[in-house]
């Protein structure tokens, strides 16, 4: 049993009861990062490296005090005896931590730009990232452990709205990341849409072909072994090689059949990228469909047959509803994986968010790299969260 990228379904663990240590640990860690690391980094221009500025200097006593108050509140909530809204409150505080950290960094950037001129670049420092990541971890932890759906959704939505409001308010405009975005606004949205198109097309391919293979493996168990062995080999090939490997054959094919070229198919560009993404998605989808259907007890199918259900009714009313948690989990893991892999599409001329990453790496422009990489991470996290939400909405008991 081997899923790609180690994405085995979470095993059930024998966990003992104990003090809720994570929020404490994280707020202590964030506090240390605050006191030691640079909150923002001020550089004289885009390519030179800068000097770190601590939170105290960057945000002033007021900002630092508010931040400490939130960290203290999280630690206090964590050591409290359990009460009804404990998780929701910790989640909300974690969200506030993230939004406040970003707002303070934006304010510091505006001040520095006003004081030192247009060329100055203020980028986010290690202290900021530690705080932001700590908030993200806490938020994920609370969403996972809170039993009620509304309690899971509230902190997440509040944080998302807060971050979105901050991003659109223009208060961050002087951060180097925002300035990197401002000079290529149109290109950014084009590449983002391209990234989504590539991922979507690859996913569709994987769902159709992988679904068919999974169904076939379920119906004819004897063929399942060899089929999965072949798909396993595809999964073993390094992603970069798979992307590049497809260029040659497709170029050859378009050379032999010029009609294909008129359809917009060529060896460089989206065609090999989509094909590679689809191939990478085959195994997780096929295995997920196979595992989901196989997990439905035979007795249930027999009972449905005994009740006189037709084949179609059995599939629609018995197999699919019972396999739904696993199927949705498969969809989530595959989508997240393909979003990450689509970054490589830029290397074979297909565009996507990877274009900024590789452009930035080539120019040693860290902020451009950051723009592409953070967007890809945010996209993956959003897709993961949205599909987890959908799963909670559609099924009572998500797959374990």
């Amino acid at each position, binding site marked *: 049993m081997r899923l790609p990228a180690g994405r085995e379904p979470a095993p059930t663990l024998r966990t003992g009861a104990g003090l809720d240590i994570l929020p404490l640990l994280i707020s202590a860690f964030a506090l240390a990062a605050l006191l030691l690391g640079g909150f923002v980094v001020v550089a004289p221009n885009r390519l030179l490296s800068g000097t770190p500025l601590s939170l105290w200097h960057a945000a002033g006593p007021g900002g630092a005090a508010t931040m400490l108050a939130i960290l203290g509140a999280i630690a206090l909530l964590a050591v409290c005896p359990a009460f009804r809204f404990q998780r929701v409150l910790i989640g909300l505080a974690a969200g506030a931590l993230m939004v406040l950290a970003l707002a303070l960094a934006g304010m510091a950037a505006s001040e520095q730009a006003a004081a030192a001129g247009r060329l100055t670049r203020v980028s986010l420092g290690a202290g900021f990232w530690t705080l932001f990541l700590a908030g993200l971890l806490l938020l994920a932890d609370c969403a996972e452990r809170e039993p009620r759906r509304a309690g899971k959704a509230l902190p997440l939505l509040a944080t998302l709205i807060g971050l979105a409001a901050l991003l659109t308010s223009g208060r961050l405009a002087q951060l180097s990341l925002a300035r990197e975005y401002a000079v290529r606004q149109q290109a950014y949205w084009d590449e983002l849409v391209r990234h989504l198109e590539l991922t979507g097309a690859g996913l569709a391919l994987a769902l159709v072909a992988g679904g068919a293979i999974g169904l076939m493996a379920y119906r004819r168990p004897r063929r399942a072994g060899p089929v999965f062995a072949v798909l396993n080999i595809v999964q073993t090939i390094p992603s970069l090689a798979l992307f590049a490997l497809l260029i040659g054959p497709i170029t050859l094919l378009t050379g032999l059949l010029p009609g294909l070229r008129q359809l917009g198919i060529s060896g460089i560009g989206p065609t090999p990228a989509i094909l590679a993404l689809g191939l990478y998605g085959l195994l997780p989808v096929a295995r997920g469909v196979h595992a989901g259907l196989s997990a439905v007890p035979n007795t249930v199918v027999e009972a449905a047959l005994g009740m006189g259900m037709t084949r179609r009714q059995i599939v629609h009313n018995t197999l699919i509803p019972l396999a739904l948690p696993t199927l949705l989990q498969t969809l989530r893991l595959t989508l997240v994986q393909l979003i990450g892999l689509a970054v490589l599409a830029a290397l074979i001329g297909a565009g996507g968010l990877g274009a900024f*990453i590789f452009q930035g790496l080539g120019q040693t422009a860290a902020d451009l790299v950051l723009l592409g990489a953070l967007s890809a991470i945010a996209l993956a996290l959003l897709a993961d969260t949205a599909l987890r939400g959908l799963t909670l909405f559609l099924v009572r008991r998500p797959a374990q």
Partner: protein
Amino acid sequence: MRRAAARRAAGLAAGRLARRPVVWVGAVFLGLTFGMGTLAPYLGFLFPAGTRLVYTRASFPELVASHALLTGAASLIAIAIGLAAALFATRPTGRPYAATLDRLGALAQTFPPVAVLALAVPSLGYGALPTAFALVLYGVLPVLGAGMAGLSSVPAAVLEAADGTGFSPAGRLWRIELPLAAPILLAGIRTSVTIGIGTATIGSTVGALTLGSPIIDGLSGDNPAFVLQGTVLVALFAVTVDLAIGEAQRALPQRAR
């Protein structure tokens, strides 16, 4: 007569060995690694005229050695960290943290490897270092997951029986738990190493010298010959290593019994 039987058994074993895919895939891989330099000049018919056919930045054995060294070292570190964390999370003192570690791993896996690789560059510079960082980070997760799953899959009755027979905690771990967890653990290590080889390939985008280097150089320099040479070798490398660990997995149950 007994000697004849032994010889026949040895011959059968050798025959069976020769039929294992790992042997011939590995042979093709090694042959191409050392033969690519000789073979390359004759591949001109595959590519547009005027394509440079011989990769000159480093020889293919050098690239393979560098790739293997990077992946191997990072995988060893990742396995050590992952196993240590899994052991900690399944001991009485660490058990309260198991769920947290598990969630942390799930969150980390959402992050695209290329993005993490690129994010490591500003602080670690270009070259092998950021690649090794990303390799270790992504290598730990499958080992940790598989280690926790494997160690907690040992039935409680077995553990009680071991305690009742007078095993010390260390002896129980070494002689009962680890052997029983080994199949799942090895599957995790297999995934970890496979991911490592793939991530190391991407590492050449940040300047690490691996089998990805001819691919990247070929893509940016519009040279399909380099791309083909790199992809074929790295694919064969990954499949060979995967099959080799698969053989170890197959050999394991007999030893564990």
